């Protein structure tokens, strides 16, 4: 079982969509939200994905396909 902490950034037109609920149903991952800030025009959520690493990767791919920005909690690592 892997744990992966991510930060999801929502563009304005995606703020109202239940994207986190959806990936919890489409993939075998548990979503555990820790922190969020959703404003009128921008929003982000920090959460942990728990599951098989293959399922986590598929869930992230799906999140990106839904049009939200997904990054590890560390943000940019490549220096």
């Amino acid at each position, binding site marked *: 079982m892997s744990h*992966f902490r991510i930060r999801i950034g929502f563009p304005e037109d995606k703020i109202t969509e239940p994207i986190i609920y959806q990936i919890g149903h489409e993939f075998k991952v548990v979503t555990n939200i820790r922190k969020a800030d959703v404003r009128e025009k921008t929003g982000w959520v920090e959460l942990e994905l728990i599951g098989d690493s293959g399922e986590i990767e598929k869930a992230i791919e799906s999140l990106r396909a839904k049009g939200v920005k997904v990054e*590890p909690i560390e943000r940019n690592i490549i220096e």
Partner: protein
Amino acid sequence: MNKKSAASDTLKQKIKGLKCRECGKLYPAVAMHVCEFCFGPLEVDYNYDEIKKIISRERIESGPKSLWRYADLLPVEGPPTVGLYAGFTPLIEAKNLGAELGLKKLYIKNDTVNHPTLSFKDRVVAIAITRAKELGFTAVACASTGNLANSVAAHAAEARLQCYVFIPGDLEAGKILGSLIYAPTVVAVNGNYDDVNRLCSEVAGEYNWAFVNINIRPYYAEGSKTLAFETVEQLGWKAPDHVVVPVASGSLLTKIWKGFNEFRMLGLIDSVTTKVNGAQAEGCSPVASAFKEGRDFIKPVKPKTIAKSIAIGNPADGYYALKAVRESKGSIDAVTDGETIEGIKLLARTEGIFAETAGGVTIAVLKKLAMKGLIPPDETVVAYITGNGLKTQEAVINAVGDVVRIDPSMDSFEKSLNIKEKNN
């Protein structure tokens, strides 16, 4: 108790643990970087009461001529075991450049000659890998397209540790030579930036490696404080009025500000009125834009600049860098690639220092701030030049002059150069 045993007592107790920067929750001083409760970044929590009892200017001055002279304020428990010669680079009084920019007390902190890989990363990596060894790691890793990879690979070789360097799959071969020479395992990951970045974070979570800027980051980042410590000592135990610092992840700027304030808190200097200024490239300026627009959050950007070593579109410490600049009443500005190249050339022409692109950005922003009057002529200013120009030669290859080509005759020589003074 004699002085020596008091010193070793302090060394044992100086780190209390790690502390969350957001919620303040405490953790032991192990290899972790994120608060399990609020996901905030962790920072080393020092036992300043104990450090205060022992630290003094004299104690520092009698230390080695490297960053380890500040070991009392660095997050390692024992003596350094790798990177013994990092830091204590020259602070150069830049009279020629100062004259061009109208600044009477301009200094260049020259990390283009840092040991062993010619960038400020040798500071953070010396500390990260010494700490990684203390924590029992046998393998170290990083994700990098340049300076960080070079430094980690070199220090891992010295420390005889396994080393894994992750790079994006499309990175030019020449860029990785400076790492490959030290014989690490270089893993080229196919995919776009976000894929490579995500994989590295996943790997760091799954393998028991010291990933220097991930799970070792709280220790690693502290190394940048030494740039502030050295500046103060080299200025005769005074903090400058202004500093100009390149902003990539934002960690360097944040830690320089912290370094000045630690010295003040410990009574090594009386006051800190330093304005901390940040420098970014226009093609990757998420922190400068937030500053300009008065925002308290960073909007990620897609980098497009020749200043690749500071092109971080979603900087981990951008928020804290912004806060440090505002607290210190400094400023953040951004410059074009053209201004960056001119900055590199200006520093080389006036001071004989060849900086990489990040240095060009710093000099160009320094010039801009001086022209705007944000850095007055009589105030002391230190510009941090963090990497060597030999590493980014492609950036200036078309911007330097050409040779004067002649035939092997005095006639050709004299006609081509037309020099008046002659010895006769």
